[in-house]
């Protein structure tokens, strides 16, 4: 009865693993971020992404002219299109506006539609994936059959049908592209959650009587999100390309005052022989942006890959 409880147990030897980091918790994500910073591919990707986002946000400041001003219509005719000169760095676009201005404003559309549509796909897909992977049984079968149906329709066809049914608007485009991504996220998250289901820490959590919901949302889900986040980054690239593709096909917002890269390529078509850059510049913008997201996504996948860790 003399020993105070607290000193009864000798303190654990503070050995190996704890000596390296001294401040408060370092999570899986922070470790991944450290590895990310050392990868040149990630840095290039991130740089492209930062430039892209900055351009989209600062378009009104950066652009030399008003968007869609069409005041140089006389400089764009079937036989002559003004190329780059000192006044117009990248020349005049099909409708007689400044090309550079239109491209800068086009970044906004791509960013908004790309991000929102990926978010739609991510949220819906992750929701379905969590249901299927977390609860299993008939919930799993039901959800996955629905996903199979979505998957059996070619994604571009699905997007076209949705965009056609909802009318020509940017929102329709977002829903269309998002819907096409749902199966990707749902299947990915489901499979990574199923992989965790009998892992030791899940059995340990079960042995503590935690509720199924707590285990799924608090333990299994955070451990399964890595691949999904990576996929989302990669899908941003696809989404940006798809925005362009659908616009090219004449779906999406057809207000000519709103610059959009895909539609700029289409409008450049009929003057392609005299002014190939009408299609070339927006095409290059799409390619570089998509490349940036892909580089970043790929290096994130590597950084989060457990096999890559020391």
């Amino acid at each position: 009865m003399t020993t105070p409880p607290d000193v009864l147990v000798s303190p654990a030897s503070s050995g190996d693993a704890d000596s390296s980091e001294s401040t408060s918790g370092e999570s899986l994500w922070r470790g991944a971020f450290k590895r990310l910073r050392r990868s040149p591919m990630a840095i290039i990707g991130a740089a492209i992404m930062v430039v892209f986002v900055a351009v989209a946000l600062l378009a009104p400041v950066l652009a030399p002219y008003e968007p869609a001003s069409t005041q140089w219509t006389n400089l764009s005719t079937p036989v002559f299109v003004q190329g780059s000169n000192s006044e117009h760095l990248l020349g005049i676009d099909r409708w007689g506006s400044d090309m550079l201005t239109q491209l800068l404003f086009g970044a906004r559309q791509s960013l908004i539609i790309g991000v929102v549509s990926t978010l739609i796909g991510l949220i819906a897909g992750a929701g379905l994936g969590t249901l299927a992977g977390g609860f299993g049984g008939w919930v799993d079968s039901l959800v996955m059959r629905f996903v199979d149906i979505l998957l059996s329709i070619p994604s571009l066809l699905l997007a076209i049908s949705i965009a056609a049914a909802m009318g020509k608007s940017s929102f329709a485009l977002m829903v269309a592209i998002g819907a096409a991504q749902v199966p990707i996220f749902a299947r990915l998250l489901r499979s990574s959650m199923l992989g965790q289901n009998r892992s030791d820490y899940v059995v340990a959590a079960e042995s503590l009587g935690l509720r199924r919901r707590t285990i799924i949302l608090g333990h299994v889900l955070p451990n399964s999100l890595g691949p999904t986040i990576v996929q989302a980054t990669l899908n941003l690239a696809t989404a940006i390309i798809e925005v362009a593709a659908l616009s090219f096909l004449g779906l999406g917002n057809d207000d000519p005052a709103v610059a959009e890269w895909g539609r700029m390529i289409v409008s450049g078509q009929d003057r392609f022989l005299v002014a190939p850059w009408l299609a070339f510049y927006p095409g290059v913008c799409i390619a570089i942006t998509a490349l940036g997201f892909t580089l970043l996504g790929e290096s994130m996948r590597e950084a989060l890959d457990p096999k890559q860790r020391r």
Partner: protein
Amino acid sequence: MSGDYLSGRPDEGNTTVVGDTDHDGALLEVNDLSVHFTRHGNKPVHAVDEVTFSVGAGENVALVGESGSGKSVTSLAIMGLLPKRGVEVAGSVAFAGRELIGLDESQMRNLRGAEMAMIFQDPMSSLNPVVPVGKQITEVLRRHRRISKPDSVTESVDLLQRVGIPDPARRVTEYPHQLSGGMRQRVLIAIALACQPRLLIADEPTTALDVTIQAQILELLRELVSGTGTALIMITHDLGVVASLCDRVHVMYSGRIVESNLRHQLFARPRHPYTGGLMESIPRLDQARGLPLTPIPGSPTDTLAWSQGCAFAPRCPNAAGDCKTQTPRLEMSDDRALRCFHPLDTEAARIGAARG
């Protein structure tokens, strides 16, 4: 006194009193438990058969056997943690007078963590790598005892302190990979004992740790369990662990109990040839140097189906004709139980008896 320091808390908001608290029998009674794994197209695997034992309140019991002898499956069956599909559990597991086999899942969840808890073999993979350890403790506290979030944080710091983790207020914010193996196992112990369960199952808690840490963890377990009335089932293949910690020992082979006895008697006079073989194969300090160890010949895969005879017969030095044609029954007498036709009768290994 070491006993009551875990229970000496002012909480008692413990709302999950389950089962008949003043029933007379043992805390846990396992009767004729069997677990069969069935798979389409394959013969069912009898992982555990005819397992019968009981654990009294505050008693320390060991389940001993080599890999594949069914000790872990037995413990998972008691906890109701076996997967539902492809597994048939039969027999009876009574906890404080209440039948657990067939108990519905939500009631089982109320019991687990509060009344019975488990410590697993690998402390690295049993902690969630992306959740700070503090949260993994408060989660259990808040699930089973209605306490506020700040209270649960204070309590978890307290618990970490009690299991001997230095600087617990900082450690609660850390992630499992920042702790050493021994500390992780201490955290797991803190989590398992957070709600003062009446039964703790430790499934090879020291196997993944190095030897010096093993001793510390065993010491910690002994201190935390003794006197609190928490019963302990220690699952191990390490007779040294048994010798230092357990009152009663059940030796399992190929899914069945082959010998049960009180610790001292078992070490002083092993009757089953398998138990004897286990003791022969322990290195001893009092032997001349350079002598080779005596292993049990063969491997655990050289078994006979229990339905045909004695599973140990192919490896047994005492095996005779009847061992391969008839199934030995578990013969009970007083404190002992033995499943053997031709038991050892030598006063052989005295390991552990002397250590007391």
